[in-house]
């Protein structure tokens, strides 16, 4: 039946993660550091509120853009915590996860053949969504020697005049890198000079350790050029609820809302209600999770360095991205041999793009006991290869 399919759709490659997922799920006793979601359950106040709302029979559609109360509360939160001012009436759209927001952004902006600049390595969905919108993808390598911060020189090299969109994602998955205001300024200048719209996925913005997060839209002249994509999955441990949002210029939001109206209708109401409660009362639970992540982050970075692997200090999200070239293995080989020999699942850096070669992504969304056990196993594995 293949000939019925759209060539565009069939051009989508299977995710590089799939193979390891299949391997890991057939084995027993595997410790996985391969997960991109919190190990915490959603804070109880939020779950309880959603349960109550179900008891009350709040099971209907909401307005397309999302509950106005949620948009209002979100607008307040963004102003207070991020220094971003978006009107709840026409500059905010509640989506089914940041994932939908990325998809909508691409569909709203891309004319087939338009160029989209995507960092490499990066979260796997950007290229997929851009491709489905008919974009011509230009990868911009992120380099270990710059701690995976995007450099204007690399942007310049990847840029061609058909480029319309730049995808940014800090704090970053898979590297854990962040970028400071000073480091982002030249990127903003580049966007202005080349008339780029920036789709900035800042879903990990609350999960930073030591530095404060700079929302891209707060840089000079960037508010109109930026679609600020974010969500509740990570900071509020809400991955399974499917709720996120996008903020931007009313013209963009209007069109994105229209696509959303026809394809999705609205984000699930119980997720919206829980998210609203999170914004109102979930702060302390969120802070506790952040402190716990920080502790695990230190544990993991230290563990890799003690093995003799170089590992730059990630200051955001919940990933470390150690350099495994000292073992003489390529990323995929490392991940494959590690799971077979020591039953630890990690994700090869190349699953996020060719520039991830030489690295593995390890998530620290696990208990300290699990992390210590995993480190012990990885250490045994690495030792054999270093000597």
């Amino acid at each position, binding site marked *: 039946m293949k000939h019925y399919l759209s060539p565009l759709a069939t051009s989508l490659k299977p995710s590089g*993660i799939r193979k390891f*997922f299949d391997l890991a799920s057939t084995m027993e006793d595997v410790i*996985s550091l391969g*997960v991109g*979601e919190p190990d915490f359950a959603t804070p109880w106040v939020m779950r309880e509120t959603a349960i109550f709302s179900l008891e009350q029979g709040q099971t209907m559609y909401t307005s397309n853009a999302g509950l106005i109360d949620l948009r209002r509360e979100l607008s307040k939160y963004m102003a207070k915590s991020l220094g971003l001012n978006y009107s709840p009436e026409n500059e905010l759209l509640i989506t089914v996860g940041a994932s939908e927001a990325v998809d909508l952004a691409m569909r709203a902006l891309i004319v087939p053949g338009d160029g989209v600049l995507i960092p490499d390595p990066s979260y796997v969905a950007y290229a997929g969504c851009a491709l489905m919108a008919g974009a011509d993808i230009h990868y911009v390598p992120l380099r270990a020697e710059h701690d995976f911060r995007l450099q204007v020189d690399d942007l310049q090299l990847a840029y061609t005049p058909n480029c319309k969109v730049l995808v940014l994602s800090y704090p970053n998955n898979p590297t854990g890198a962040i970028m400071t205001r000073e480091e982002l300024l030249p990127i903003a200048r580049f966007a202005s000079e080349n008339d780029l719209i920036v789709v900035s996925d800042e879903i990990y913005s609350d999960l930073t350790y030591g530095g404060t997060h700079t929302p891209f839209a707060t840089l000079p002249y960037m508010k109109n050029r930026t679609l600020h994509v974010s969500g509740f999955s990570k900071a509020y441990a809400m991955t399974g609820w499917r709720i996120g949002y996008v903020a931007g210029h009313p013209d963009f939001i209007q069109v994105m809302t229209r696509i959303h109206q026809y394809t999705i209708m609205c984000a699930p109401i119980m997720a919206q209600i829980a998210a609203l409660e999170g914004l109102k009362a979930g702060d302390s639970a969120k802070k506790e999770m952040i402190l716990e992540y920080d502790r695990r982050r230190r*544990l993991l970075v230290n563990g890799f360095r003690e093995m003799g692997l170089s590992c730059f200090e990630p200051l955001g999200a919940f990933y470390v991205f150690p350099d495994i070239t000292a073992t003489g293995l390529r990323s995929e080989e490392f991940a494959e041999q590690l799971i077979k020999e020591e039953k630890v699942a990690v994700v090869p850096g190349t699953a996020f793009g060719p520039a991830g070669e030489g690295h593995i992504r390890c998530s620290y969304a696990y208990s300290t006991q699990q992390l210590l056990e995993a480190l012990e196993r990885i250490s045994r594995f690495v030792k054999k290869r270093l000597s």
Partner: protein
Amino acid sequence: MLSQEDRRLLYILSQDCRLTPEELSIQTGLTPEYINKKIKQWEKDKVIVKYGLLINYEQLEEDRVTALIDVKVLSQRGQGYDKIAQRFQKFPEIKSVYLMSGDFDLCLVVEGKNMHEIAQFVSDKLSPLDLIATTSTRFILRRYKQDGIEFHGEEEGPKRLMITP
């Protein structure tokens, strides 16, 4: 006031007091020297009173019961609650003594092998004390959660996928 770092240090230590200053240093970013000094100071100031263990005796099938005994005391001239509490806390059977708001004045936590032993203690030792007006004894039948730990939590939480992007 505790600084945020110190509060964090104390918290991590309260979760696992076996961690060495070096291990604590890795997890907090504070230096081992600082941590050592801090812990010594807290021990000296009786902020850290004891390094504890939380045992689930049900698991051992040991005979052991705990009772909460609410006590209404007869206030007597010259004997404030502090004085009265001091008399109770001398009994080794009494593990904790709290001054309470509400209908009763003090709450005693008493441990014994079985209900009989605690009943004996109440009638032989407590009731005769002239400072007690009334008592009300309640036995703990099952511990579901203590000190933040769930004893009968579900064996396994919901499963996350092994690998997600």
